[in-house]
């Protein structure tokens, strides 16, 4: 096996919490999330090197002037080999950036890797600035929370984008006040989001620049041992309803065939309700051949407690992130009991 592939295995197997098999590693020396967290900002917007993994994960559903649907993803993963940091080549903090851009007919993806410590990649909390190479996510907020206004850029071999984001609501916290349980055995992470962004900006595509507007959702999560040994992949949804409400839902698929689900209902005013395992049900309706694999790209999502029964359709069924550890991630629309837009991420499909 090539060196890089191994490194990625190491990095991703720990950083990419969205469900790869065999990742329930011991958290030796690393801090472990505890219930009843108290977050302090802006510090917690920045990195937590004492935890093994962490990410700044932003997805946006966008429309061009002609109504064409687009989607972008911007993610910075942090993966620590040791729970410490230094400011030279030896820093054991590794960073990985993923950028995606989806159009109805094409999907672009790019990846960057870097070690922290020399200045090539890293995150500062005050002022907030997450960076890897020339990809940036930094705060443009003049008052209030640092995440209230963000500037976002990324560039791949055949695409780039440059977006401004403004939050129209507060940060929301998943699970029990930001303590998000990920398995029946109790593995957990700290998890909060800013789901209320309005977006304007420009997509740079091979055929020319496209001005866009839309909405975006930022996830912040960190942990040291997010998954249980038998969890092999996950399906994650962020949904925006037409009445302004939002919803996060995920199902972690077990090797035995069962799932562990979790959902957060977000009212338009930012108040939330969390739902543990068993409240939602996800059923694949159609599959697509993507990169030689069979991927369920249309889903039925039922949430009886909230009277939700919807069917999701991807903007582009081939939204394949062709990165070192590939996965499906792209914008969706949904119809049924409710209509709206959202983002879907699916990992662990062989």
């Amino acid at each position, binding site marked *: 096996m090539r*060196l890089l592939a191994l490194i990625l295995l190491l990095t991703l197997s720990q950083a990419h919490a969205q469900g790869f098999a065999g990742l329930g590693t011991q958290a030796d020396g690393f801090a472990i999330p505890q219930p009843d967290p108290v977050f302090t900002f802006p510090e917690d917007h920045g990195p937590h090197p004492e935890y093994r993994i962490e990410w700044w994960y932003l997805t946006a559903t966008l429309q061009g002037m002609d109504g064409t649907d687009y989607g972008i993803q911007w993610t910075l993963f942090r993966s620590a080999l040791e729970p410490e940091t230094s400011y030279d080549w030896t820093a*054991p903090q590794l960073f990985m950036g993923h950028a995606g851009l989806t159009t109805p007919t094409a999907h672009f993806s790019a990846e960057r890797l870097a070690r922290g410590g020399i200045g090539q990649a890293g995150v500062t909390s005050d002022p907030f600035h997450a960076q890897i190479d020339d990809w940036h996510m930094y705060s443009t907020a003049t008052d209030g929370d640092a995440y209230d206004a963000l500037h976002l850029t990324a560039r791949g071999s055949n695409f780039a984008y440059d977006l401004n984001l403004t939050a129209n609501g507060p940060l929301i916290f998943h699970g029990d006040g930001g303590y998000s349980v990920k398995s029946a055995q109790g593995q957990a992470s700290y998890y909060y989001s800013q789901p209320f962004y309005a977006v304007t900006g420009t997509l740079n595509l091979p055929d020319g620049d496209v001005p866009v507007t839309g909405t975006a959702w930022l996830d912040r999560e960190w942990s040291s041992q997010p998954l249980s040994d038998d969890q092999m992949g996950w399906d994650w949804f962020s949904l925006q309803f037409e009445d302004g409400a939002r919803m996060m839902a995920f199902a972690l698929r077990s090797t035995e065939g069962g799932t562990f689900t979790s959902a957060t209902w977000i009212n338009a005013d930012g108040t939330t309700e969390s739902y543990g395992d068993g409240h939602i049900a996800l059923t694949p309706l159609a599959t697509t051949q993507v990169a030689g694999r069979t991927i369920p790209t249309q889903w039925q999502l039922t949430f009886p407690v909230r009277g939700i029964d919807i069917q999701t359709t991807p903007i582009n069924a081939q939204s394949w992130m062709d990165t070192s550890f590939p996965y499906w991630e792209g914008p969706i629309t949904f119809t049924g009991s409710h209509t709206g837009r959202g983002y879907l991420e699916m990992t662990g499909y062989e």
Partner: protein
Amino acid sequence: MLYTAIQSLSSHWKRRPGQLAMLAIGLALATALWSGVQAINAEARSAYDRAAATLGQDQLARLERADGRPVSLDTYLALRSAGYLVSPVISGEIRDANGRLRVLGIDPLTAPAAAQGPALDGDLDLSTFFTAPGLLLVSEATANGPLPTDLPPITISSDVPPAAAITDISTAARLLGQTDPSYLLVAPQQPFGLPPLADATDLQLRAPETANDISRLTDSFHLNLTAFGFLSFGVGLFIVHAAIGLAFEQRRASIRTLRALGTPLRTVLLALGIELAAIALVAGLIGILMGYLIAAALMPGVAGTLRGLYGAEIEGILRFDPYWALSALFITWLGAAAAAVQAMIRTARMPLLAPALPRAWAQASGRAMRVQTVAALALFGLAAMLALFGQGLIAAFLCLAALLIGAALILPGVMSVALRFLPTRGAFSEWVLADTRQQIPGLSLALMALLLALSANIGVSTMVGSFRSTFIGWLDQRLASELYITAADPSEAAFLMDAIRPDVDAILPIVSADQRLFDRPAQVFGVVDHPTYRQAWPLLAQSENPWDQLATGNAALINEQLARRENLSPGDLLPIAEGLPIVGVYSDYGNPNGQAIVSLDRFADTYPEVQPFRFAIRINPEQAPAMASRLREEFGLPADAVTNQDQVKAFSIEVFDQTFLVTGALNILTLGVAGVALLTSLLTLANLRLPQLAPLWAIGTSRATLAKVELIRALGLAMLTFIFALPVGLALAWVLLALVNVEAFGWRLPMQLFPGDWTRLFALALIAAGLAALGPALRLARIPPARLTQIFAQER
């Protein structure tokens, strides 16, 4: 019928196992030397290719500073944050008394796919690669070889080139004490919408090294080996040709009988062909085995040579390659077929009912000799033209080849003429001379082989000898100081020098910096103004008062290699600092790279980061040992940090001798093969000549006298060959020194003569000829008189 034909024909070998052995030895030797050389070349080439492919150097462009110094970390980060996909490499050498190791530190996170580094074991824990103490990936041979002490843990990987270690950039940074990347690898595809990389940086963009420097540099060496291989193969084929010719002559009767009994010609030829192919197969296999053993035995020497001459790293270990073995076998068959062609044609043309009249298979022919002589003169003319007007290494080698082949072709003519002018006394000696002349065509191939072997020997030993004595003389001048000290770091150096300053005559700092000059690696040295240099560094070309000019700091000296390569002479400008005028050219044997010397002050201005920690000490030679032990004991310097002149000199000469070990070994082998060729030819002739000797015996010359004459004649011919080989060999040496050496290494050596070597070689030639002639002569001395009588009955 075919089976019967094969059986009856091969019964010959049962009666004459010696002849079979000769044929097999000839084929085996030819195969062995040729395939051995091929194996060495192939191994070295694949080592270069592996080295060239390391980190994708053969596919990736790189960015580096024009002066060859490290790229600052900020420059790297600026390029990354502008979006360019470049990846840092920190490379350098660590070296101590125990060994040396080139360290290549890569950043696997940013390395382009082509430079992803070697394969790793699947169960390796990656954090050991990334975090201290780190992990070094080396080849198995490197791991088993001499390595510096205090290295991080080592893991074996077959993809790593020799004498190098691949490791994480953080480990390399720590081991080499260097934070800044040595250079940046450039990913072939850069992101969308960025201006061209060349517009974004002051660094130099270097294209991928498709034909790498080392293999070009070492071409001459491999050409050299190949030439030796060809020579040996040719000489070996002389043996085969002689042995097959002999067998043909002796089997004339059997063939005639077979044909008379109704065996079709085709079947006879097929039988002969199958027989030869079978012998060639067995002999070829033996030859391949021998070739492999020779190559394996020579490999460490070759590795030493390549390292010594060119700084090229190959492992002194030979891998077995089945393709190599197959191609060697093919060459053996081809050679055997070429050697047998004459005998086959003669068999085909033999009239069915002709008497089995033996005759010399190579008939004397004055016309053939004249044609050869004209061809030889034409070749000499070509050699002269090439020597005068030829350019490049290939022309130099062609000149060599024309000279050698010409000499071989003209040999029979020269011999005949020489024999004509020898004084004679009486009828018998006149007969001996006439008979010898008559024999020359039959022996000519063997004598040519001997001539080639002897000339090559004289030529190469003259070159190596000239080289060695010049080198030692140069070492004496260069290593003028009595002691050489290496401190751990500049501050220890300063402390040490202050401490010993009162007790020594002079302290000469040795400082150097790597710098690219004219787009190739070079070194710049800084020297103080001291009589040591003025006296000990002879200059090949100079302007007025070069050392005074150098001392002002506004001038530079360059080595001969740089001067020849870039066509520089005193007065030209050297691109160091703002450009320094060249005031002299010095000889710098054994260094493949360019070199320049500037004053110490100029050096310190230009390379402020280089602090001296090596020093040459001038001291009364009698006090040198005491000072050396004082440095070790009082200041605790490790033993290898203080070396005296004698040690350095001994080490240098050892490296030098290692360098030419291979040439010497091949020389001896070739001479041995030539001896065997002579033996085979004499054996062939011995039987053919009986009809000519029988009348002499009949008129009263004793068998012992005839045998003595045979022996003396062989020695005489060998002597004549040697005498002719001497000027040829010296011409060869001149070509090697004045043409090949200049083209291959970039410096010219004065030619020196070594009559002692000639005497030794002369004795060797006589011994070889004597041994070769002894068997046939003894047989003649013991031949039953009845056999000689029979000759009258049967042959006449």
